[in-house]
């Protein structure tokens, strides 16, 4: 046991003297504030005046508050029991059942927490006596003496270690730690392959059929003949491969004759050799940061990306009309095969998607 204060020599029932300190019951001091500096720090005697009063100023109000707090705590207890009951009693496995379960569990949990919280707040405000106390701050900076002592100890240790006076030791230690510090970065190399030229190509090849993405059925040019049509297509055989789709997914749009603006020297436009029957294909991956750009306005011929509103002119080689995209959507060269199905006639002639350093 730690040192106890000298005990009062009061006789006990069994005749022995108690060795434990007795509580001093004094009258509450008139002033609530107390000063720490008046005492030796860390100690107090049973005879010191009370720092905190035992009861609040208004006992009647405190009694009412006590009842309110007790009621709130009981409410919380019931809510917690309700939570457990709701968990055991309510099943999920459908949207409606999940709704009921979420409502019951959430409501009981909220009441359980909020009731205790409100009770504790009323307890602090109305049952604990109101005090305002002052504590002195110490200047945060250490004294000159303390700093000097620290400096002395530290420099003595530095000298004793020999680190300062022996440059050979110091320099070879640093030389030893440099590659050791670099090694953990080096071993991360296998986190991924080198990019190589993979960003420059997609899987589209000459003769590869386009399928309507979703049903994954090939599409005849003759079935895509109404001006104003637009649909998302993917390369046949790759519709389950998200890595391929993330680069190869394409939109095709059908125009009435005479609407597409052909590409001319000095005036970029749609490359007509890459279209078939006024059907033009553009990459669906936005050249800004890669969202699928699929919002097609039939009346204005605009392709709008919903992420950051880059807008491309579908009649004019997907030139940029507005927004942050740096370059037009690449056009995919398309044609038809012997059965009339739409096919790609080669890969894109430039990398698709967001710009990167080696893009050129």
């Amino acid at each position: 046991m730690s040192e106890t204060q000298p005990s009062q020599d009061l006789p006990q029932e069994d005749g022995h003297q108690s060795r434990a300190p007795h509580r001093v019951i004094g009258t509450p001091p008139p002033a609530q504030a107390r000063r720490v500096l008046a005492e030796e720090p860390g100690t107090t005697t049973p005879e010191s005046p009370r720092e905190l009063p035992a009861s609040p100023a208004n006992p009647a109000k405190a009694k009412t508050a006590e009842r309110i707090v007790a009621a709130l705590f009981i409410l919380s207890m019931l809510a917690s029991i309700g939570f457990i009951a709701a968990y055991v009693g309510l099943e999920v496995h459908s949207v409606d059942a999940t709704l009921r379960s979420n409502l019951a569990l959430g409501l009981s949990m909220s009441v359980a927490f909020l009731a205790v919280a409100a009770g504790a707040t009323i307890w602090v405000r109305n049952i604990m006596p109101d005090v305002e106390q002052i504590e002195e701050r110490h200047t945060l900076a250490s004294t000159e003496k303390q700093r000097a002592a620290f400096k002395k100890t530290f420099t003595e240790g530095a000298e004793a270690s020999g680190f300062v006076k022996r440059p050979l030791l110091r320099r070879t230690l640093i030389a030893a730690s440099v590659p050791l510090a670099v090694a953990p970065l080096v071993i991360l190399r296998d986190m991924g392959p080198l990019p190589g030229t993979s960003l420059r190509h997609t899987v589209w090849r000459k003769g590869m059929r386009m399928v309507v993405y979703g049903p994954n059925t090939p599409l005849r040019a003759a079935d895509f003949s109404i001006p104003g049509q637009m649909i998302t297509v993917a390369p046949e055989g790759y519709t389950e491969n998200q890595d391929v789709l993330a680069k190869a997914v394409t939109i095709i749009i059908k125009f009435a004759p005479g609407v597409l603006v052909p590409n001319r020297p000095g005036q970029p436009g749609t490359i007509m050799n890459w279209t078939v029957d006024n059907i033009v294909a553009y990459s669906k991956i936005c050249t800004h940061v890669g969202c699928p750009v699929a919002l097609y306005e039939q009346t204005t011929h605009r392709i709008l990306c919903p992420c950051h509103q880059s807008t491309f002119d579908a009649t004019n080689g997907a030139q940029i009309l507005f927004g942050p995209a740096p370059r037009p959507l690449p056009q995919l060269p398309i044609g038809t095969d012997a059965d009339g199905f739409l096919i790609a006639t080669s890969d894109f002639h430039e990398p698709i998607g967001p710009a990167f350093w080696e893009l050129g």
Partner: protein
Amino acid sequence: MSWITALRRRPAAGYAVVLLGLVTIGVGYGALTTSGSPASAASPGTVSPQTIAQGQELFVRSCATCHGIDARGTAQAPSLVGVGAAAVDFQMSTGRMPAKDVGAQMDRKPVTFTPAQIHAVAEYVASLGGGPAVPSAAQVSTSGANTALGQNLFITDCAQCHNFDGAGGALTNGKYAPALTESTPKQIYEAMLTGPEAMPVFSDTTITPAQKRDIIAYITRLRAEPNPGGFSLGRIGPVTEGIVGFIGGIGVLVFLAMWITMKRRKS
């Protein structure tokens, strides 16, 4: 003094009157301006010469001013030759036509014709140049539909304009893709088929009728679904969640913090 006079003298009386006025105006306005009620399916009925004649008469009275007496269009409105009965049925049953305000695009509004009248006008326009027909009830029935495929197609080709929940979205220059909350299955089918205004065309040879039914099944299923997590906050995602988080979350907590730290009145 009467009880009304007594109540009138309370300090809260002024606020109560203002509140009553606001509520009355709000409820009244809300009741008066119903958004376009979904028109019931125009029964295909018979296509008789009388129907077409009746349709022509209605057309001349209500549509010819903008679309031309021969439906070949004027400066204000495009030609309707070849658009088909489906397009007419869509535009008229959603109340978009006859157009009142020629703005960036036509909004859905209360329908001014009966289903029989719409059917007549549709058949008249169809008689001028053919075009997609109004889908039958069987064609838009969603029983046995593949909602998984419908979900895939919806996300790939519809959600970029209409939002994954069908809440609608902004287009350029004041246009917008409308919300899909009130469209009937027939109207959804017709919209895909005819590509109204800025919407692209999704013909039956590209998205087959069965696939259209799958999409309709997904849309109707999704919008009828309850929200298990509480109020939906519009189902448009993080924007409303952020607003609720700051106002409902931090706001409420600030008031609670003020309660906890309030100075006690000297009792």
